[in-house]
C-alpha cells in the first residue's frame, strides 16, 4: 500500500486548470521527484497534498486514512511535513526556538533540548541554537528550514525547490543529507535542477498543464519521447 496517495485530484483557478485529475502515489522509503515546466502545477499539487489549499475534487489518503478534508495543521500532526520554497523561518527567533516549534507541533513532541539538538546536528547546524535565525547566511537558513521539517518527525517530507539559491558545494552536502533520510522518511521533491533529480530520485512524475505526462525511473523518464518533446527539449 502506498504511503501517500491521491486520486482524481483537481484544482482550477478561474479558467486555469492548475491540477486536473491527477493520480499520484508515494511509496514508503522512496525519493520521488516531481518535475515539469513552469506553470505545470507542481506547487499547486503539493499544496493540495499538504492542505495549504483545499481540493475541489478527488481524494487524498495518508497511510490508508482519508485526509482530504483535514486542515493543513492536522495533516502535519499525522506526519505530512512541508518545507517552503521561499525560506520561511521565524527570523526574529533563535535557531533553537525555530526548531523547538517544529518539535512541539510534530508527531513526537517530547523533551525539547535533545530533539532540537539532534535535528540541528543532522543538517550540520549543531551548536548554533542560540543564534538569531535571521542573522544566518542564506545557505544556513535553507538548512534550518530542513531541520524544522525533520524535527516534525514526518512520515512524508515534501521539499519544494530545496536547492534553489544554494552554491554547488552546498548542493552536494544537501544530496547526501536527503539520501540519509530514506528509508525512514519518504521524500517528495520538487526540483528544477535536473542533475539533482536524476541523482537522487528513485522515481519521477512529470507534470504538464496540470496533468501527469509520464512517470517512471530516471532512466525511463530520460528515454521517454513525450517528455523529451514537452520538457527536456532534447
Amino acid at each position, binding site marked *: 500500500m502506498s504511503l501517500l496517495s491521491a486520486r482524481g485530484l483537481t484544482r482550477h483557478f478561474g479558467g486555469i486548470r492548475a491540477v486536473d485529475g491527477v493520480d499520484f502515489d508515494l511509496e514508503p522509503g522512496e525519493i520521488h521527484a516531481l518535475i515539469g515546466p513552469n506553470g505545470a502545477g507542481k506547487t499547486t499539487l503539493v499544496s493540495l497534498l499538504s492542505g495549504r489549499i483545499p481540493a475541489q475534487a478527488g481524494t487524498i489518503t495518508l497511510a490508508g486514512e482519508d485526509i482530504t478534508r483535514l486542515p493543513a495543521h492536522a495533516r502535519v500532526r499525522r506526519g505530512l511535513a512541508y518545507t517552503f520554497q521561499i525560506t520561511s523561518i*521565524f527570523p526574529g527567533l533563535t535557531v533553537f*526556538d525555530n526548531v523547538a516549534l517544529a518539535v512541539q507541533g510534530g508527531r513526537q513532541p517530547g523533551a525539547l533540548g535533545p530533539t532540537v539538538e539532534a535535528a540541528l546536528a543532522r543538517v550540520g547546524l549543531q551548536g548554533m541554537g542560540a543564534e538569531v535565525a535571521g542573522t544566518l547566511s542564506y545557505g544556513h537558513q535553507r538548512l534550518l528550514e530542513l531541520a524544522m521539517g525533520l524535527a516534525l518527525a514526518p512520515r512524508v517530507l515534501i521539499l519544494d525547490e530545496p536547492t534553489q539559491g544554494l552554491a554547488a558545494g552546498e548542493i552536494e552536502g544537501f544530496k547526501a543529507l536527503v539520501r540519509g533520510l530514506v528509508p525512514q522518511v519518504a521524500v517528495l521533491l520538487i526540483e528544477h535542477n535536473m542533475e539533482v533529480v536524476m541523482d537522487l530520485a528513485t522515481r519521477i512524475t512529470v507534470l504538464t498543464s496540470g496533468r501527469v505526462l509520464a512517470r517512471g525511473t530516471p532512466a525511463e523518464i530520460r528515454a521517454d519521447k513525450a517528455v523529451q518533446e514537452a520538457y527536456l527539449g532534447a
Partner: protein
Amino acid sequence: MRAWAVHLAVLAALLAAGLLLPGYHTTNLARILVLATFAAGYNLAFGYTGLLSLGHAMFFAAGMYAAALPAWHWGWPAAPALLAGTAGGALMALATGALALRTAGVSFMIVTLMFAQAFALAILYFNGWTGGDEGFVIPSASRHLFGTSLAADTPRFLAAWSLFALGLLLSLALVRSRFGRVMVALRENEERARMLGINPFAAKLKVLVISGAWSGAAGAAYALLFGYAGGSFAGIQYSILPMLYVLLGGAGTTLGAVLGAGLMFYLTEFASSVTSAWLFLVGLVLVVLVLFAPKGILGWVRARLWRELP
C-alpha cells in the same frame, strides 16, 4: 533565573514605593497597578501574539460589571465578585473571539471595535440594571477582603499590588512556556506556524480568553478598589489606553505594561497641572514615541542592551 530575579526586584521596588511614599502616591500606584494588569492582559494578545484588538474595553467592563452588579444587587462580598469578574472577562473573550478570530488584521480591529461598541451601548440601554452612564457606587459592605476595607489607602494598594504581581509572574511563566513560543510564532509568521502543526484559530482563541480573564480581573478590581462602576469604562478610550501603555512601555515585553501605565499616568498628571490642553501634550509624546522608538522603551532596551529580556 536572571529574568525571574529582575521581575521579583521590580515587584519589591513597587511594594516599597507603595508603602513608603505619601498616601497620594499610594492611591496613584494602586490605580496604575490595576491599569497595568489590564495592559498586561492586552499585551499577551497584542504584544506577544500580534492580535491587534480595539475592543478590550468590553473585557475590562465585562469584568467590572460581572463583579459590581452582584455586589450592588445581591450584596456579594469582594472575593467571589473578583472571581466572577475574571470569569466574566474570559467568557466575553470566548464568545466574541470565536466570531472575531475568523478575521485577521484590519478586519479583526474593526470587528472587535464593533463588538465593544455594541456592548457599551447595551450597558446604556439596560440602564435600569446597570446604572447606565451615571453608573453606581459599590456598597461598602462588598469592599472588604479578608476583613480589611479596600477603601483605605494601604489595603487598597496591597490588593492592587497582589493582583499585579500574580498577573506579572503568571505572564512571565506563560511567555517562557511552550505555548508562549507558539504565541510569538503566530505573531511572526502564522502560515509557517500552521505548517508546523499549530492550529492558529484554537491557539489565538486561547490567548484571547487568557487576555480577557486578565482584563476582566482588572475591571473587577477597579470597581471594588475605587468603589464605582459606570458605562464610561466600556467606551473606546478604555480600549485605546492599554494599547498606549503597551506601546510606550514596549509591546511584547512582560514589564512594558507597568512601565507604560506609570509613565502615562504621571505624564497626564503633570500635563493637566500645566495646561488645560493636556491631551495635546500626551498626543505629542505619543507621536514622538512612534517616530523615534516604535518598539517602546523596553523594546529599545531589548534591541540594544539585553536581548533575553522576556
